[in-house]
């Protein structure tokens, strides 16, 4: 685990760096007037277009076109594809899509992504390590990025903490059982080692091993 760069595992190299925003046609003050009770109003770029994301305390979200001021509908298949292709860092594979799937709020999501992002689009590229992007269906934001090394690392983590169902519970009795046994083994080994090093040379031929 220590050999693999954790930022690579997190898929941080799968995406192009964020592009700067262009100044909005509809100003912030109008948004503030329209949604005074919003928690926050954020101006950001999603697939080359500048949009406002209005978030409320109850997690409700609106996305508004910063040019027209219109509320945008949830992301369509073609829009999800466009977002995935435009954000994917490796241009050799950007147009090679293996599969695209929609997961609604009631679907059970794939195991490599958190259900809190539902509903979302899952876009898998036909590229080495099966890179996969998850695009939130309401906002169009890329909420998760996965590839086979992430999936492998996830399993190594489960082995590491000996939690084989969801890999989330470090405080599990199986791990305690085996680590205490290892501790006995370790202490016994250390004792043997100390004895070996302390012992006078027991061989007459004099080869110390």
């Amino acid at each position, binding site marked *: *685990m*220590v*050999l*693999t*760069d*954790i*930022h690579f595992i*997190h898929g*941080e190299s799968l995406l192009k760096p*964020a*592009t*700067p*925003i*262009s*100044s909005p046609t509809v*100003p*912030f*003050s109008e*948004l*503030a*007037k329209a*949604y*005074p*009770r*919003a*928690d*926050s*109003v*954020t*101006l*950001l*770029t999603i697939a080359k277009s500048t949009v406002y994301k209005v978030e409320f*305390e109850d997690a409700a979200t609106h996305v508004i076109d910063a040019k027209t001021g219109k509320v945008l509908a949830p992301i369509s298949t073609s829009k999800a594809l466009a977002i995935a292709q435009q954000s994917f860092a490796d241009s050799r594979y950007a147009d090679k899509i293996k599969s695209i799937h929609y997961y609604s709020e009631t679907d059970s999501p794939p195991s490599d992504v958190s259900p809190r992002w539902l509903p979302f689009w899952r876009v898998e590229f036909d590229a080495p390590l099966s890179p996969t992007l998850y695009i939130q269906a309401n906002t169009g934001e890329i909420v998760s990025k996965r590839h086979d090394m992430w999936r492998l690392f996830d399993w190594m983590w489960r082995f590491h*903490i000996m939690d084989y169902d969801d890999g989330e519970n*470090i*405080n*599990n009795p199986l*791990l*305690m059982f085996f*680590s*205490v046994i*290892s*501790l006995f083994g*370790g*202490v016994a*080994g*250390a004792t*043997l*080692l100390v*004895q*070996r*090093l302390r*012992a006078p040379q*027991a*061989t*007459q*031929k004099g*080869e110390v*091993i």
Partner: protein
Amino acid sequence: MKQPLAFIHKWLGLVVGLQLLIWILTGIYFNWVDHRIAKGNELRQSSSHTVKPFPIDIIDLDEKHFIGVKRVELTHLAETPVYQLYYSLPAHNNQKQDVKTFHAETGLPFSLTQNTVKNIASNSYSAEAEISDIELMYPPHTDLAGEENPLWRVVVNDSAQTHIYVSPITGKVIAHVNNARRLHNIMFMLHFMDYAKTGGFNHTLITVFAVLNLIFVGSGVLWLIKKLPMMVHAVFSSGKKPIELLQNNGSSGVHALVPKGEVILHSLRNVNIHLPSICGGGGVCGSCKFQTPDTLPVTEADKAHCSPQELAHGIRLACQHSIDAISKISVP
């Protein structure tokens, strides 16, 4: 080096053994500890904030402000409407952030006052917080490895020596660091061998130790496999056999009934003959020598510890041969 596995296992054990014990012990700590308490959050509470509506007289930022900006957020920071301009979008919050904050009504630069920070900190602390010091600290932070941003440090006068860290950018509480958390930090540092306080495990030292440790464990497993036939034999055969114990001058001595199917060293223990053994029967210390007139093969370990003359005189290591192979024995 007659027994490469034993040699590798011993010397690697010396090099990586201590770290292996540290990994096991800190692992047990992580397994056993309540992580909410260990992270310093025993007295942490989320502050209930009520959303204030945006005022009607929000001003719009001049276009030149948007140059090179990745994201702009209109929100409230400590109940004040503000614009926050993000010049970079790091993947993790502890990475260097580049954010400018402006008051959304005046357009002037805005930052949290010491008093606001104090309120944020005490609201996050579920007991009465007696605050003795507030200071804006710059990285590296002793209490928070890997944190690259400046943070307000609010020192609480309690027995756990709590320091509350507040982000000057988001006004959010980053961590409560108390003595429990400091212990947790030390455990992490040891587990990750992160003596340079990078906050991570992608560094050369731990990579080298991990590889050496793999070789250490591997050599041990192979050694065990090599010895396995003898051990299996000992477990599955039963019954006793007579053996003649010779006098030191070679003349006939007494007979004893000893368990079959064990190595000589262990079998003789049943009749209270305790040959010296330092390595516990590993074939590596060479202290368990005995002599027999019977013909016995010469193992690697015998060769390593007995001179050719000794071997010719039927001297061998008692942990290397089965009692089944001999009928007479003389012990020093």
